[in-house]
Structure formats: structure tokens, C-alpha cells
């Protein structure tokens, strides 16, 4: 066990420093870079908190689509296998099940990288 502050608490301190102290003292391209860095500290804060359960869920979803046992492979390996199968032959059932699983997985990633981004659903612009 690491001593306090936790990773989360340190990231919060780093984010506050960048956003409240460093950014206002800068201008131009460097200020923009620091703004981005501050935002990344916020992303990492959420990642520390949320990543483990989300990754477990991602593995479960992918394994289910692929018909595999959970625990045999990592999320990246399962993703690679899914892209391979999607490319191998046209399988409408696999595509539809993939779409549903991928939507949940992507929403999970967004809850870390950009909460609220998935509130917009393009509903009015889809019909051809």
C-alpha cells in the first residue's frame, strides 16, 4: 500500500495546479498545451477510479459476443479477435451483437475520457 495521498488525490492536486495556477500565467500555444495536460490529469483521476470495473465489463461483453470463456484473454486480444472475425466473413448476427456490445464499451471509455459526450444521440439526422 502506498502512503496517502492516493494516485487519485495526487492527480487532482496536479490538475488543480495546472488549471488554477499555471494556465493563467501563460498564453498562446503553451497555455493551450497546459490546458490539455490539466484535462488529461482529470481523465486519469477518473481512470484510476473507474478503469478496473470497466475493463472487466469489456472483457465479459467481448467474450460473450465471441462465445468464449471469460478470463482466457485480455480485452486487447479479444478486440483483435473480434476485428478478425468481423473481417473474415459477413455475419449479420455477429455485427448486430457487436454493435450493442461496442456501444456499451465505448460509453464506458467516454465515462473516463469525456463524460456526457454520449448524451447526444444524432436522433434527428439518421434517416436517409
Amino acid at each position: 500500500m502506498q502512503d496517502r495521498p492516493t494516485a487519485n488525490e495526487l492527480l487532482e492536486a496536479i490538475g488543480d495546479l495546472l488549471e488554477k495556477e499555471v494556465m493563467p500565467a501563460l498564453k498562446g500555444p503553451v497555455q493551450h498545451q497546459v490546458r490539455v495536460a490539466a484535462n488529461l490529469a482529470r481523465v486519469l483521476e477518473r481512470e484510476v477510479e473507474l478503469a478496473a470495473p470497466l475493463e472487466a465489463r469489456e472483457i465479459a461483453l467481448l467474450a460473450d459476443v465471441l462465445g468464449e470463456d471469460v478470463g482466457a484473454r485480455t480485452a486487447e486480444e479479444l478486440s483483435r479477435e473480434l476485428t478478425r472475425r468481423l473481417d473474415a466473413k459477413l455475419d449479420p448476427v455477429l455485427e448486430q451483437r457487436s454493435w450493442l456490445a461496442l456501444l456499451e464499451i465505448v460509453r464506458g471509455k467516454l465515462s473516463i475520457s469525456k463524460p456526457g459526450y454520449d448524451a447526444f444521440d444524432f436522433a434527428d439526422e439518421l434517416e436517409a
Partner: protein
Amino acid sequence: MSGLQDLDAALARFLSTEWAGPVEILDMGIASAGARRRNVLFDARKDGFRTPLVATIIPNAAIQVMPMEVEASNLRLAEAAGAPAPHVHAVTDDPSFLGGPFFLTSRIEGETIPRRVLRLVAENEGLGARIARQSGEALARIHSVDPTKIHPDLPGAEAPIEAALLGARALLDGLLQPSPTFTLAWNWLERNRPSEPVQRALVHGDFRNGNLIVGDDGLRAVLDWEVAHLGDPMEDPGWLCQRMWRFRNDSLEVGGLGTRADLRAGYEGAGGQWDEARFLWWKSMGTLKWGMGLAGQAAAHLNGSVPSIIMAASGRRVAELEYDLLMLLKPAFG
């Protein structure tokens, strides 16, 4: 070419020859200084008459995307067709003046930064819809340029749909991490590809909020013609309507400014032939390409070719484009 004074003297020398008489350079300022090109604003005075100009300079010819003469010819053709392209006053590929090729265009006042554009629109009732409609008109006019007059060196695939698919496939195969979402999208795009366009048109290639000069009277000019090419005209509205150019004003499809109906009315009103299915195809294709472009930026940071916190952060934006794609594909799979 370093200081503003050198620039001043070089531009005076260039314009005095070009305009056959002594020209004075006044009120010079740097508008933007990117790695690929920089924009310098100034007034040129000849015979007591001031002309507000912009010099678009490629720092050195080696990084040029297309010859300046080709880019300038696109602006001239678009302007002649009635599109709001800045007037080209002079162009040269001769590096002896400014160290690289450049062209001079009329300087047009107004807002270009998307957040400021959206603020202006919020303050002026009806302005956003007007800009969306004018964007449609501008695109129809750009696309109406007579293909036989287009510069022979303008790039463009013979079969733009096939080329877009192959280009996206190459990006897909080069991803650092697998993205089943991008694979699903590519396969859908491949299966639902429209026919190749009967006639290719001059395509702007980056027509979007951020490359438009607007004022409280509406659209004043279309900028950044460096990726123009011969292609499928519906590629342009498809790109303009990407979510990323709405800058959080998500419900207005055209750059956060207006609706697709506004854009289409302008396009058709100016004689353009709108093809809805083709538009939607290019919209999804643009989203896929941008998503893989962001992944590519992260890869460029990671392999050390472009170390930058901005490029690194792009990797964590990929999920946004994956989400957009899944939503655009909802009618097929949802």
C-alpha cells in the same frame, strides 16, 4: 526569412515588380505561424491607394502539399463561379522573396475561430441558419466549376469512392490497437458504397466551421484550400456536418450553425444536385477517417515522430469518434 522588417522589404520588392511601380507595405502583423504555413497580414499602398492583403507563405517548398499555382487557380475558379473565395492578387513559387512559395489574397474582416463564430451567431437571430444556407450556395458554386478549366496538376482519384475506402483500409490496418468499431464501420461503408460519381467536381476538402470567415451579415469567405481535389461533390457537405465541427452545439448539424435543411436549400437553390444517401455515406466516412487520424496522432507521439501533449491527448479522443460512428450506424445495427 526572419524578422518582420525583412518580410516587409521582400514583399515591397515583390509587389513593386508585380504591380509595376513602387509599393509600400504598412501595418504588418503575423496572423498565424503554423509549421506548414504562415499567414501575414498587411496593407500594400500604391499611388496613395491601400489594399488590405494576406500573404500565405509555405516556409519551404519541401513541405508543400500542392504547388501554389494550383491552389491559387482553385481560388480563382471558385471566385469566378460566384463562391466567396478570397481574391488572389499574386502568386509565386519563387523562393527568393520569402524563402518559400506564397500567394497574396484580399484580406476579409470577420470571425474565423469557431467559438467566436458561435458566439456571434448566438447574438444575431437567424444568422446561423443564414450561414448554413450560404455554405450550401458556396459549395454548389465551387462544385459547378467547369472540370475542363481545373488545373491539370490538381490531385484527385479517378474513382473517389474506391480511393476513400482503400485509404481508410490502410489506416485501419495500421492502427496501434484494434478497433472493432472502426472495422464494423469500414465493412458497412464498403458494403453500402455508392456508385462512383458520374462527374468529378472541384472539392474544397476542408469546408467547415473554422475555415469560414463570417460577420453579422453572414458568410464572407471560405479559407484553407490546400487539400482541395477532384472528387465526389457530396464529400464536402458530409465533412461539414461532422459532429466535431459543431463545437458542442450538437443539435445543429452544420457546424453548430444551422440545419441540414438550411444547407441543402442553399445547395439546391444555387443549382447543386443533393444526393442524400451519398451525403450520409461521406459523413460516416469522414467520421471514420477523423477517428483513425486521431489514433494516428497518438501513434506519432508514441513513436517519437511528433512528441506533443496535444497529439498524445488525441488518443483519448478516439472514443468520441467511435461513439459518433456507432450512432451513425444505428439504423443498420441498432
